[in-house]
């Protein structure tokens, strides 16, 4: 087969113009200047990735800082990072299910259940922490597996399956906690320490920042070289240098600023690491491709030979497992598991974080970084408003208004998309 096809390749590739830039309708851009024009052009075309969310974030940060100057203080930002981690991890799982066009309403209950299981095994039963943690995560994964079976076999809408899960696992959580209702995790346990007091030493933070920027440069450089070799267009080295330097400066500044008080929490680093791993899985593996394909057009994915059921299963399992991990982090952060853990607005916040981060509820569009940005938007609003001394009624109204503001900014900057025909 391959021979047939290759036999007529006319070998014009690798000339002076890169293979992918030969169409005469394409405006060509090269070098640093080209990269810049490209960004501007993409911005006008509404194809901006996460930039709009970042803009929205900057707007609400400014508003909140004006309302209370403590908001951007180092200490408050450290709180912000630590408080984002638990729900952020849950939102990461939500991104995955939303990508395949499904939903999981039970992440709150599953996280609560996981916290309860952890507390019972670790505190009441006195098992080692790793056993308790594994058990909690395995239960989470099992929940996702059951959802996937129900979904794949019976075709029950995931909304209803997970609504049933929401109720069922809330019940199980209460049952596991029993009459006690709440269990404290010991303050001197590694787990609580990790979530409350463990911060990355300054030297290590700076090193990590440099490594991250260096890695961005190196991988970008190698990739560009490979593309050039294959006769394809590639990012110019100068553009790469600028990007890496920008990242470096941003990271160094962040590390330095947070370092003014407690620094960067290990829990936050853990969350960011998970985001990076998920980003890799979603964008650089066949599994990730299949997830987007299933979310975009499940029938097309099936016809391409993708085992759609496996993809659904993996995604539901992943989401519930992340919910369980989030529940463990939440319990560790609170140093307790109680009846209301995972209740309240955990579900809505996790889903909202994913959606605010640009994940489509209809499937096929979204990124792992969206969860990171989305949760930071949500936690910023929540944290910013706790700094204002407001009545609950006013607080709710202001929260709603600020949330809307953040997202309108985002949507307006995306808006041109439609008028440029990318609806």
């Amino acid at each position, binding site marked *: 087969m391959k021979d047939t096809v290759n036999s007529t390749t006319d070998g014009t590739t690798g000339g002076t113009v890169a293979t992918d830039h030969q169409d005469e309708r394409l405006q060509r851009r090269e070098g640093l200047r080209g990269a810049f024009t490209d960004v501007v052009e993409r911005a006008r075309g509404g194809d901006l990735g996460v930039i709009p969310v970042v803009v929205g974030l900057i707007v609400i940060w400014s508003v909140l800082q004006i309302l209370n100057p403590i908001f951007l203080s180092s200490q408050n930002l450290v709180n912000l990072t630590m408080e984002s981690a638990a729900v952020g991890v849950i939102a990461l799982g939500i991104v995955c299910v939303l990508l395949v066009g499904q939903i999981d309403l039970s992440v709150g209950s599953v996280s609560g259940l996981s916290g309860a299981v952890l507390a019972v095994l670790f505190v009441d039963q006195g098992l080692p922490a790793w056993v308790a943690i594994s058990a909690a995560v395995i239960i989470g994964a099992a929940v996702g597996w059951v959802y996937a079976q129900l979904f794949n076999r019976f075709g029950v809408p995931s909304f209803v399956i997970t609504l049933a899960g929401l109720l069922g696992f809330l019940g199980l959580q209460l049952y596991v906690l029993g009459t006690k209702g709440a269990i404290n995790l010991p303050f001197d346990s590694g787990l609580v320490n990790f979530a409350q007091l463990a911060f990355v030493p300054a030297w290590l933070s700076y090193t990590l920042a440099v490594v991250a920027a260096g890695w961005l440069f190196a991988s970008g450089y190698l990739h560009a070289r490979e593309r050039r070799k294959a006769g394809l267009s590639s990012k110019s080295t100068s553009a790469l240098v600028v990007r890496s330097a920008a990242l470096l400066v941003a990271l160094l500044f962040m590390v330095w600023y947070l370092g003014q008080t407690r620094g960067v929490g290990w829990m936050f680093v853990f969350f960011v690491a998970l985001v990076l791993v998920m980003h890799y899985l979603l964008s650089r593996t066949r599994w990730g*491709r299949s997830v987007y394909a299933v979310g975009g057009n499940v029938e097309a994915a099936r016809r391409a030979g993708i085992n759609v059921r496996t993809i659904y299963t993996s995604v539901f399992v992943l989401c519930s497992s992340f919910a369980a991990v989030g529940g463990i982090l939440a319990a560790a952060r609170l140093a307790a598991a109680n009846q209301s853990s995972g209740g309240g607005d955990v579900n809505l916040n996790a889903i909202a974080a994913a959606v605010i981060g640009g994940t489509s509820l209809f499937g096929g569009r979204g990124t792992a970084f969206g969860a990171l940005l989305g949760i930071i938007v949500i936690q910023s609003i929540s944290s910013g408003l706790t700094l204002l001394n407001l009545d609950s009624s006013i607080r709710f109204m202001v929260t709603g208004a600020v949330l809307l503001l953040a997202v309108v900014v985002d949507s307006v900057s995306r808006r041109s998309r439609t008028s440029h025909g990318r609806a």
Partner: protein
Amino acid sequence: MSPTQQPDAVLSLRGISKTFGAVAALTDIELDVAPHQVVAVVGDNGAGKSTLVKILSGVHPPDSGTITFAGREVDIPNPAAAHKLGIATVFQDLALCENLNVIQNLFLGQEIRPLRLNDVAMETRSWELLRQLSAKIPSVRVPVAALSGGQRQTVAIARSLLGDPEIIILDEPTAALGVAQTAEVLNLVERLRENGLGVIMISHNMADVKAVADKVAVLRLGRNNGVFDVGDVSAEDIIAAITGATDNAVARRASRRQEGLPS
């Protein structure tokens, strides 16, 4: 094996039926395809051609009937099974993921280096394939949603050439293609035949059918309505078999035009 089966057929269908609700889409269909052979399946709109294709590629299970592939009776419960047997299909509705770009669609399910995608290799190969089909696609990094109808069809055709199929099924592959692209696809079909593949091509264009097919199987209202050697029949005969009458709209139109009615 059924006695009427061609001895050298790589794919044989016997008694295939399929009903959708109250509509009998296919009734008792027979079809044989040999290697080095291009079988054209023709028929009116709604005759059941695409339904047949979907059964062969595992999209729908047949209600009854048997499929024999390379001498063994097989079951094609899902598209993955068809891929495994070596049946590649270009669907009439293309079945592309609009949110993915051209490269991602081309290599969907058969990505190079699954655990760390090799996008340089995939991009290079994509350009090769598309060039070969004379595709006029300015960039392979745009989502398929942004392509024109013909560009999409070219992508779908290019995709079926990846992998290493034994049978290629093309459901109206040239419907949206420009004249140059159509010519390339016909060339391609001939090359595929030379390479020993069996090709099933569905088309409404009698000129294309006459040009590349070896055999023509006619479907009418979901039933077999004759299999012809392409050398033995005229386009008019095929059309008569398709419409079920020699006095059909095409013939009427042709005669009207010959009589010199306003064109």
